[in-house]
């Protein structure tokens, strides 16, 4: 999932003033009521409700309410639960997976969900222009022996498949989009999820209403959910205070303390798979020298950044796989802040007296720019002069992909509950990002990722992932900085518990009086 930390810097300045002054009127722990319209404000508008198209969270979280997937992530983000599929098994030769579908699920157009719909849906996400096609490229063929059975044939033994099927991009749509073109279907999407698409006034709000015939009996509780687009984080906070909205996505870090002080508002942090990192371009001198990279890692006072920029919301990171996955290597501890050790490491390097370099920062992100200044100060202490280079997010992304930078910040989250996606994305050169844009190449990492995804023994997989995390920790192509929680502030709401993968499960949410 993609999340731009967009926060108009100048506006953030005003937010502190405004927030300390505003009062609240919502009640955090009232009596749950049935029905009602929940209003949720978000920074960005959804871009498309066609599952195979978008990559932005604003779209993803609506898609997850409208459609079902074969499996669904559990709360912790460690495994998947049955959803449209009731059970699944891997063949003895490990080259195919068979999924058995539930028979009581219906699309909101009244038609039953069948294996033909599943085949069509997955094939849409296999098209080359689909952003998440890489997740499904391992599937060579989809068979539908009967209406309630789907068989996926895979190129190689593939353990992550049940987790892959929980990805929003693999949501189940009616076969042939119910006879419509993709564009027409996207205007009036039809799924089998807890909510049904109602209306979308582009630029301001998107409304979904209760699917009364949802196959999970008794759900959802709400009558409808309205997602409004409010770009300014300060305006979202004041709207929450005046009960104009009930849930605020992404309150700014700086506003959390004041929000917490308000008796009627709840600020909650949910474990998320987000990891923020600092990447170094090992293709360029002097970052090709591991001692330089180690020196930088030791010189940065991560604890101070966590306090100053994140206001303490998060934990210092060790291994590059998040603690929300079972593959997390807990034996890797965060690198301590040690200036003497950093100087010693630099002394052993090709540039013992330091050098001049740049750090790239995306514009519009107050957080990244403060982080860069703190890193600049820390590195100056060991003789490394850092210039801060600000680029707008799109240009920044191009520079990262082209390997045209020295140091850069970034963050990643997982889209599937299996560690395979991130192990490849952040651990291997060919996994999509050239090892998080560092350009670090190590054939051992590729071999370990392959072993882990083909083995069906969890212990064997874990051993491989542990080793991968150790290799990154030893070679430091990038520094995992923080494990960051998902932060939401809300008013008169009960039962709102986003999963580690970000799913909202709005069918379980209730408004309170």
């Amino acid at each position: 999932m993609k999340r731009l930390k967009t926060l108009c810097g100048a506006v953030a300045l005003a937010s502190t003033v405004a927030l300390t002054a505003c009062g609240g009127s919502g009640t955090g722990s009232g009596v749950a009521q049935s029905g009602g319209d929940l209003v949720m404000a978000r920074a960005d508008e959804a871009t498309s409700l066609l599952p195979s198209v978008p990559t932005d969270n604003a779209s993803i979280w609506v898609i997850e309410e409208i459609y079902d997937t074969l499996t669904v992530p559990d709360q912790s983000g460690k495994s998947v639960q049955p959803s449209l599929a009731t059970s699944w098994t891997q063949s003895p030769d490990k080259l195919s997976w068979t999924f058995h579908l539930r028979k009581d699920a219906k699309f909101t157009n009244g038609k039953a969900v069948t294996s033909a719909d599943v085949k069509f849906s997955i094939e849409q996400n296999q098209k080359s222009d689909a952003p998440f096609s890489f997740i499904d490229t391992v599937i060579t063929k989809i068979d539908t022996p009967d209406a309630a059975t789907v068989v996926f044939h895979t190129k190689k033994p593939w353990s992550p498949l049940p987790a892959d099927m929980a990805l929003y991009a693999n949501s189940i749509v009616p076969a042939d989009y119910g006879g419509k073109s993709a564009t027409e279907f996207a205007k009036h999407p039809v799924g089998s999820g807890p909510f049904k698409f109602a209306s979308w006034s582009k630029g301001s709000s998107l409304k979904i209403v209760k699917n009364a015939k949802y196959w999970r009996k008794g759900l959802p509780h709400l009558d409808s959910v309205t997602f409004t687009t409010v770009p300014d984080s300060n305006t979202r906070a004041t709207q929450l205070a005046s009960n104009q909205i009930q849930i605020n996505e992404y309150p700014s870090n700086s506003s959390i303390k004041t929000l917490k002080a308000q008796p009627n508002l709840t600020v909650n942090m949910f474990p998320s798979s987000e990891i923020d990192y600092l990447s170094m371009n090992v293709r360029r001198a002097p970052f090709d020298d591991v001692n330089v990279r180690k020196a930088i890692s030791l010189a940065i006072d991560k604890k101070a950044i966590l306090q100053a920029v994140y206001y303490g919301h998060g934990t210092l990171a060790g291994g590059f796989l998040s603690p929300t996955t079972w593959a997390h290597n807990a034996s890797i501890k965060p690198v301590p802040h040690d200036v003497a050790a950093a100087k010693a490491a630099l002394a052993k390097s090709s540039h013992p007296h330091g050098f001049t370099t740049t750090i790239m920062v995306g514009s519009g992100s107050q957080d990244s720019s403060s982080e860069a200044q703190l890193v600049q100060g820390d590195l100056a202490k060991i003789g490394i002069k850092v210039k801060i280079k600000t680029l707008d997010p799109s240009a920044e992304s191009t520079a990262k992909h082209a390997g045209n930078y020295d140091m850069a910040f970034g963050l990643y989250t997982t889209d599937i509950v299996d560690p395979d996606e991130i192990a490849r994305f952040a651990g291997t050169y060919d996994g999509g990002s050239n090892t998080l844009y560092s350009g670090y190449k190590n054939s051992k990492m590729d071999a370990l990722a392959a072993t882990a995804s083909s083995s069906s023994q969890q212990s064997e997989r874990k051993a491989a992932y542990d080793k991968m995390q150790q290799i990154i920790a030893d070679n430091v192509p990038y520094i995992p900085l923080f494990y960051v929680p998902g932060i939401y502030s809300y008013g008169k709401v009960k039962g709102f518990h986003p999963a580690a993968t970000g799913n909202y499960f709005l069918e379980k949410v209730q408004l309170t009086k």
Partner: protein
Amino acid sequence: MLRWFARRLLLAIPVVWGVVTISFFMMHLAPGDPARTALGEKASNASVAALRHQWGLDQSMPLQYLNYLKQLVHGDLGTSVYYHAPITSLMAQRLPVTIILVVLSAILTMLISVPLASRSATHPNGIAAVAVRLFNAVVQGAPTFFIGAMLILFLGVRIAIFPAGGYPADIGGRAWALVLPALTIALGTVPIMVRGLRAAMIESYGSEYVAFARSKGLPERPIRYGYVLRNAGISGVSILGIQVGALASGALVIEQVFAIPGMGSMLMTGILNRDYALVQACTLVFGLLVVVVYLGTDLAYARLDPRARLS
């Protein structure tokens, strides 16, 4: 008159072509890839290449430019790759909102500026004039987004008369929701307007026709409205005409703060996501808007000032 109008319209063509061309090349030469931005950082290079091909971004830039001009001549603004929708339909939803916002803020600018300017022109050393000067300094010094945030805080939350941002579905709610943003934008232009009007009014008060009107025994009220404001109004109109560009760019920022779904927020989204067609279309529309307003300003001149001839 008709000939004048036709000539002005013809002159607008190179202006519009210039706007279109500059925005095309500025967007295409800026680093950043729309396909990568749309597909996210995890998408494979093959997916990005497939999308670039689908969108015609793998063609040479002159060819893309010619295709764009051809499309434009046919009245087709293209498709937004971010919103997955034809731009004409997006414009139909968003342009009226911004136009209403700009018109409303122009009206508010006049409603606030005229009394303030005439008061400080008639009593240049009074307490009111000092207060107006102070007000001008504060309002002009504070950035509009800050003023917007403060208005939301006081009139949206403390004394909840107006909604704290947002754009409701009903017409009445919408009109109400536009008041604070329009006021915020207007406050950005008021100081310039007040200063210009005040100077023009003071000059007008010192003129011979006012002395003549006084000497023939006309009371102060008709002098102020019939002579002074009528003459100062000419400079007022030209200031307002020039400021429409500023009002429109004010709308760009303020729509974000108040969550108003107009052209400004769409243009911002377009720029950040490298939605070339969308940004070009927005710039074109803003350009046309300014051309039309300048035309209107000239027409208003002729109406107010018999000395100005449309030739």
